[in-house]
């Protein structure tokens, strides 16, 4: 066998999950995750992210395809796989009637640990996630962020090689989210734990993942590093907002009129509706601005704002699926997830 610097720790081939009602939640996806990698699944609600993670973590039986983790076949060796993985599910599952420490000890027990070794490990992890002062309070009294941190710490008790995180920051306030991001980065860098993360937050995928798959409707639509994916777009995004000039005689809505004007410019590659304006894709945003301003000079439309940005992962998603991962969906996503509820 050839020695390789990077070895695949997760191999997924043509994975399919069809639910009893005929819904194809996962529609033939294949990917590899390398040891030590921070890998992400980015996609909107219903893309098949949670289903994939449930299959990979032995919770859900796949319809077809093959999965191997650390050399163990998922079908034949689920027990071996469970020893190697830590899983944080979407819904925070700490026992509210046990203290933080008791929750961690119990998790260690479930992972077949006990005694001094376990106690030391728990003490260490409680320190890492900053719950020392609250460790002996009941978890039911913790804030949402503290519960997430406790949940995260408890997935690490048995020193897993691969960590699965299903939307680890959904429902957290920005500050808690940033804290969790810091922990995750440190875990990955310092302890070399492979992390498989699903998210619908673009910033999260962008900041954390070394490599990611963009998924939609059960299929992988793009794969690569965040930077590489964004470069593929090959254009800058300019978002403008417009309004009618005071005393304008033309009663066409300004947005439609602006679109009409812009579509005639050869430099414009694409025009899309943004939340309160338009997003224009051009090769070189900076150089295009003077032309943009001139275009509206002699019209009845005022340019209220111009915002140039390099392409985001949302633009990548848009390019491959024709739709955006919308903010509204992110807000709605704070789940009341139930075990067995079939989320795609």
């Amino acid at each position, binding site marked *: 066998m050839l020695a390789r610097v990077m070895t695949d720790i997760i191999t997924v081939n043509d994975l399919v999950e069809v639910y009893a009602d005929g819904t194809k939640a996962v529609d033939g996806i294949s990917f590899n995750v390398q040891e030590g990698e921070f890998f992400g699944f980015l996609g909107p609600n219903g893309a098949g992210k949670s289903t994939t993670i449930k299959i990979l*973590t*032995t*919770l859900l*039986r796949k319809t077809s395809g093959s999965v191997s983790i650390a050399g163990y076949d998922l079908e034949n060796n689920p*027990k071996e796989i*469970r*020893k190697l*993985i830590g*899983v944080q*599910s979407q*819904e*925070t*599952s700490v*026992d509210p*009637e*046990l203290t933080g420490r*008791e929750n961690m000890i*119990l*998790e260690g*027990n*479930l*992972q*077949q640990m*006990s005694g001094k070794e376990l106690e030391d490990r728990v003490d260490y992890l409680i320190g890492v996630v900053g719950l020392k002062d609250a460790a002996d309070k*009941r978890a039911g009294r913790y804030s949402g962020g503290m519960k997430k941190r406790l949940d995260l710490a408890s997935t690490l008790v*048995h020193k897993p090689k691969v960590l699965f995180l299903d939307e680890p920051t959904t429902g957290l306030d920005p500050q808690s989210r940033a804290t969790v991001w810091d922990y995750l980065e440190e875990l990955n860098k310092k302890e070399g734990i492979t992390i498989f993360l699903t998210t619908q937050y673009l910033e999260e995928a962008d900041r954390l993942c070394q490599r990611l798959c963009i998924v939609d409707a059960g299929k992988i639509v793009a794969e690569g590093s965040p930077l590489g994916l964004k470069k593929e777009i090959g254009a800058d995004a300019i978002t403008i907002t417009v309004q009618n000039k005071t005393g304008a005689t033309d009663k066409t809505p300004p947005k439609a009129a602006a679109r009409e004007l812009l579509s005639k410019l050869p430099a414009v590659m694409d025009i899309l509706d943004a939340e309160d304006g338009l997003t224009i894709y051009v090769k070189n945003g900076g150089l295009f601005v003077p032309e943009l301003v001139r275009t509206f000079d002699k019209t009845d439309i005022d340019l209220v704002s111009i915002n140039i940005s390099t392409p985001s992962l949302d633009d990548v998603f848009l390019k491959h699926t024709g739709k955006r991962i919308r903010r509204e969906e992110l807000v709605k996503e704070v789940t009341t*997830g*139930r*075990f*067995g509820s079939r989320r795609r």
Partner: protein
Amino acid sequence: MTLLFDTRNLFVRALKKLLRNPILIFFSLFQPILFLVLFTQLFSKFAQVPGLFPAGVSYLEFATPGILMQNAFFSASQSGTSIVEDINSGFLQKMLVSQVSRPAILMGRLAADAFRVTIQSAIIIALAYLLGFRFGTGFAGFLLTLFVIAFFGFAWSGISLTLGMRTKSAETVFGIGAFLTFPLLFMSSALVPVSAMPGWIQDVSKVNPISFAVTAVRDMSLPNAFSLGAEVSALGVITLIAVLTMSATVYLFRKVVS
């Protein structure tokens, strides 16, 4: 070994949760204790009606075994709510991605429920003792009584667990439990002698599993009433129920965890 280690840990978890929610124990003990104190006062004169009750037996002596079964029955009916809680909170899922032995999840639960019923029964018996209740068969009878009660609770909790895993709704489990308790209790020999009932209730009472369990306990507590035949048939009926309800429970549990 894993099985025992895991069962013990999950048993301890369940007990901790119970002790930190003393209100739960209070609620399940409230009704039996109310019955014990109130009914035994209210109906004390009935026991003197010739021919209805066994001769020389007070209503307290007659009803305490019935109230013990009521307690076992009611507690067992709630046993499914904890598994619903674990399903809905994601805790079950957390257990399932760990290395924990699968049967231990169920066994820890059942052990904790049996323990709970035993403790509650001991409290009721202690209270009845203060009111003048005595065991005709002594300490051995007391221990055997606790066993019969816990075994009955175990058999009956299978129904509640099945409902819990089937509906995943604590309200349904609680509602059906409460809905079944009274008709089954009053149509059994728990609180009223069979001979004092109208004919159709007598018929129900004779096949009512609670009656069998109550008879088994009563035969151990009333003086000179012990009969091996009654004990064996009661244990036989409870075993039959246990086999049925536990088969359903294990079947559904395997579906839930696979």
